[in-house]
């Protein structure tokens, strides 16, 4: 009996582990596969074009991100070519799939090099990006990642980011709350089993010390216990928090909003880019999200002209709403364009010469993109852009 029970418990643990694996992949819905090959360029008469390569997962669990990046990059390249190219040279874009795997990513990099890639827009996910960044550093190739948000990605001089680093978003959120005096007592509820969430939480709390508010509760949950938030909310309420910071994904946030409502607790809720999507949770009562604020570089429902043009074009071509990854990729392509114009490089130069010139030029340019106006880059590779604060009003995202 004893033996049997311990055997069953071991099996239970095994099931638990697998169940955990399964549920971590459920954030992505089915993404339409990107058409990755591009042949839509009219090469200049002498055959010299800029060749930009893209690497990212267009199949596999992270396909929703990679597909969006490649589709959006293609839109940007087509626009540039229609408008006459960069310095008169047409641009060719080719995407390779890495399934978010470091080894496949390096293979993809090598095959793009054989194709004649001069600049790399990639890779989409962090772990492969770290592996590829070492290869581009060896070759002196200029690299800009649209979405790999870890600071480990940009250790080499030749690598730049178009997205925020995780720590940055925490700092920016704390500053925004402090500067706009949104609250005096803040509670944080975060997912301690997720790098994105715990990364933002750590820098948020650090920066909060410099701001005019107090963090009264830091409450965690994990991937295995993300259905019941009553205790965390109860603590936030009893500590008198008037704002609850949620650096988490929208799935859990929708439950938190529901449970807070059931408790009659009505603080301001404040989230980051992971919150984008909360209005699309099926059967979710969107009136609960009313007044929810989020700091995010991009929201597809935003009403500015640039976003709307991009979103409608994306929908027309790919039948899907672009996400933040797509917007970052679109901006990354325009950043490459601006850097090439600034440096005045031509396609006949060697890869490492182009790389050196573009690396220098990156710190001098300023790009007005989908994910921010007046984006500039530090020599470290970090982007500096003001995240947009959005608030949900009448069931739609509205800029603040």
């Amino acid at each position: 009996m004893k033996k049997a029970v311990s055997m069953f418990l071991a099996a239970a643990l095994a099931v638990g582990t697998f169940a955990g694996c399964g549920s971590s992949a459920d954030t992505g819905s089915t993404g339409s596969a990107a058409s990755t090959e591009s042949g839509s360029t009219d090469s200049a008469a002498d055959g010299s074009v800029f060749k930009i390569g893209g690497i990212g997962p267009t199949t596999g669990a992270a396909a929703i991100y990679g597909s969006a990046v490649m589709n959006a990059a293609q839109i940007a390249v087509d626009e540039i070519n229609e408008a006459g190219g960069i310095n008169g040279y047409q641009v060719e874009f080719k995407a390779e799939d890495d399934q978010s795997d470091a080894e496949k990513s390096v293979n993809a990099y090598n095959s793009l090099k054989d194709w004649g890639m001069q600049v790399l827009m990639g890779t989409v996910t962090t772990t492969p990006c770290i592996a590829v960044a070492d290869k581009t550093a060896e070759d002196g190739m200029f690299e800009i990642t649209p979405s790999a948000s870890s600071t480990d990605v940009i250790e080499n001089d030749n690598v730049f980011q178009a997205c925020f680093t995780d720590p940055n978003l925490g700092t920016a959120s704390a500053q925004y709350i402090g500067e706009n005096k949104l609250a005096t007592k803040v509670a944080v509820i975060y997912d301690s089993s997720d790098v994105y969430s715990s990364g933002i939480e750590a820098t948020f709390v650090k920066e909060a010390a410099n701001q005019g508010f107090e963090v009264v509760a830091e409450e965690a949950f994990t991937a295995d216990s993300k259905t019941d938030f009553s205790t965390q909310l109860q603590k936030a309420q009893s500590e008198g928090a008037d704002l609850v910071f949620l650096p988490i994904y929208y799935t859990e946030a929708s439950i938190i909003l529901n449970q807070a409502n059931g408790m009659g607790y009505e603080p301001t809720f404040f989230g980051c880019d992971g919150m984008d999507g909360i209005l699309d949770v099926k059967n979710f009562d969107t009136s609960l999200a009313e007044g929810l604020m989020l700091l995010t570089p991009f929201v597809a429902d935003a009403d500015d002209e640039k976003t709307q043009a991009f979103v409608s074009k994306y929908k027309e071509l790919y039948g899907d709403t672009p996400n933040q990854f797509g917007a970052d990729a679109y901006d990354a392509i325009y950043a490459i364009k601006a850097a090439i114009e600034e440096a005045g490089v031509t396609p006949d130069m060697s890869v490492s010469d182009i790389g050196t010139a573009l690396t220098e030029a990156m710190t001098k340019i300023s790009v007005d993109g989908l994910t921010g106006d007046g984006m500039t880059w530090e020599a470290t590779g970090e982007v500096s852009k003001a995240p947009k604060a959005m608030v949900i009003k009448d069931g739609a995202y509205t800029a603040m």
Partner: protein
Amino acid sequence: MNFLSYLINGISLGSVYAIIALGYTMVYGIAKMLNFAHGDVIMVGCYIVFMTMSGQGWGAVPAVVLSIIVCTVLGIVIEKIAYKPLRKATPLAVLITAIGVSYFLENAALLIFGADTRSFTNVVTLPALKLAGGALTISGTTIVTFLACVVIMAALMLFIKKTKAGQAMLAVSEDKDAAQLMGVNVNATISLTFAIGSGLAAVAGVLFCSAYPTLTPYTGAMPGIKAFTAAVFGGIGSIPGALIGGILLGVIEILGRAYISSQLSDAIVFAVLIIVLLVKPSGILGKQVHEKV
């Protein structure tokens, strides 16, 4: 006052665990097998209620009744197809099959309903009870869950003690072969056990999703594991044990999260389980069974 609130939250969570654990414990007690697919039957029950209520506009009562019927049938079908052919096989083979059924149900749901999270509509419309001038709120769902849990336990105990079918279950649980010799239809009895257990899963699922309103194909997996823990904790095979184990587990989880660490709540729950099993291997109310050589 905070402590009381946490306690109520714990009882609310624990009552759901208890109802699921009742299903585990029934099947284990009678068929001597762990039905790991139990948690996923819960998920199927939730989807039935979700589809009928949100999709077809049904009322809560017919939706829940339909869900119970579908889950009961599903339980019998699973038993007939997956477990019955293995009646004479080793317990390990049956266990692996149960895990297989669990994955089958999860992936079938993934295929049919997609991975998107759905927000579940609360089926309980009872207003919340406010005590001590509003400082203490007991939600309607909590009250209904707790009452359902106690009523189900009492009904099950009466059923087993007073009815012929219940007595047959008891006989099968003690000695399958001897029961057969006495004229008990063992197969029918085991099917009935699965039917009752799965029907309970539907009830548990609806109450779980009402309290924690989110629904994905993996919704049943974690509560299933926790409820199994609760069943072992209370003494697997014992019906009142499942209730006590479930409620204690819920309370320990919530109090651990509130007073020790919100990150370690699961670790605390399982640490308590290990301690209980070390001290009393058969669980709180479990009978010490001596293996006959």
